[in-house]
């Protein structure tokens, strides 16, 4: 592997200073499951590797019922998926996050890293999108926040400027009659990259028979994970019926712009979008306590 210096700062301010001093030659190390492979293969270069795992605010997971969930950018998938509040209030996030690699990868990989690597097929991102999660960024000009659906800008590229880094992801507090889910298609049982991923979240009315608000997200069918707004918006105010859910799935399918690659053809991916969106909505409705009208 290429040579670099290693530093493990104790605060976010130190990270900002270190990034500013290296003028683009520094890389943030969280779990290392992408970065170390990229450095070893020469796909990314670094003169300085900044390990952020020893900064408490970057690894903590905190929750309260008013402000919601805050996931430190370096918290591991395992820590997130075994957090009692995440399990109880955000099962739709667990759906996506627990799919990232096997046990060994879960021990180390972070959701922050999954976001920053900006893969179109990243499993955590569609799940975060339907939860209206926000990326919190710190840099030389201070702090700013970007909705997750705007964070990825191209395959492998995110919206951060030089000198900025991701500190946390925040997820709003769970609302009444809310449910969310994520699922993907892979041609085997474990350890693969999504051919297509689909997320859905619903807020139902007090009777749980009508949609108040719906978000649908798609992975691996465009250069970045997508918020399929027209498909979700279609359901707002409509009754919880199979016909409406199928129509929303077809609208999501119309938004998908997949390519053909070694994991699947564009045609197959298009087909999968409709199937997976319908299933994701089913699960989100079930978690929200909703029932289909016959």
């Amino acid at each position, binding site marked *: 592997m290429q040579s*670099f210096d*290693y530093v*493990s700062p104790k605060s976010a301010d130190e990270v900002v200073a270190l990034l500013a001093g290296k003028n683009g030659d520094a890389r943030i190390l969280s779990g290392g499951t992408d970065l170390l492979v990229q450095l070893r293969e020469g796909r990314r270069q670094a003169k300085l590797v900044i390990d952020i795992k020893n900064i408490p605010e970057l690894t903590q997971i905190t929750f309260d019922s008013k402000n919601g969930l805050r996931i430190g950018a370096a918290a591991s998938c395992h820590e997130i998926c075994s957090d009692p509040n995440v399990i109880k209030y955000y099962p739709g996030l667990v759906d996506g996050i627990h799919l990232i690699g*096997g046990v*060994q990868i879960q021990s180390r990989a972070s959701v922050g890293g999954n976001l920053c690597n900006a893969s179109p097929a990243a499993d955590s991102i569609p799940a975060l999108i339907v939860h209206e999660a926000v990326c919190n960024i710190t840099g030389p000009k201070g702090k700013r926040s970007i909705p997750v659906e705007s964070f990825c800008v191209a395959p492998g590229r995110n919206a951060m400027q030089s000198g900025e880094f991701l500190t946390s992801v925040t997820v709003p507090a769970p609302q009444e009659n809310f449910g969310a889910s994520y699922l993907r298609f892979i041609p085997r049982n474990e*350890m693969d990259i999504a051919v297509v991923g689909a997320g859905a979240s619903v807020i139902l009315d007090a009777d749980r028979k009508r949609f108040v608000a719906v978000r649908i997200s798609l992975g691996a069918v465009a250069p970045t994970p997508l918020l399929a707004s027209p498909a979700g918006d279609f359901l707002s105010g409509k009754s919880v019926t199979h016909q409406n859910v199928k129509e929303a799935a077809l609208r999501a399918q119309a938004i998908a712009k997949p390519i053909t690659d070694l994991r699947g053809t564009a045609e197959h991916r298009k087909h999968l979008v409709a199937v997976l969106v319908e299933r994701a909505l089913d699960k989100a409705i079930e978690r929200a306590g909703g029932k289909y009208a016959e």
Partner: protein
Amino acid sequence: MPNKTHVTATINGEEMEFLCEPRQSLLEVLRETLGLMGAKEGCNNGNCGACNVILDGALVNSCLVLAVEIQGRNITTIEGIASPNGLHALQQKFIEHAALQCGFCTPGFIVASKALLDNNPDPSEQEVRAWLAGNLCRCTGYDRIVKAVLDAADS
């Protein structure tokens, strides 16, 4: 040549010190500096599990950990699984079930299975299979490995 860093860590219950470059993986240091050759380099990119070690109770691929990151941490490698009195039940059951052929992946499977049983002493077959999804074996077809782990859990 970058400066070498001095690292102290507990490896298989023993405090060890070594010098390493920041770019060196834990796997590289275990094998080439510390002479612990049990962890294997298979893919060197986190797919095969042959280099598995337990880091503060968590199963990790040592090829994806920098050696400088383990300052003050606790590591168990395959060399730390057996006791002075004999083989660990997992090792014994791997032999009894012939759960290996070439053996290259075996240290990783044993360490991964140890982490499973530490975490879940009575796993179902499905739980064993899901847990071991990050370990690749090109010889056995996995059935014998899964049977050996289930048998070790029972014993």
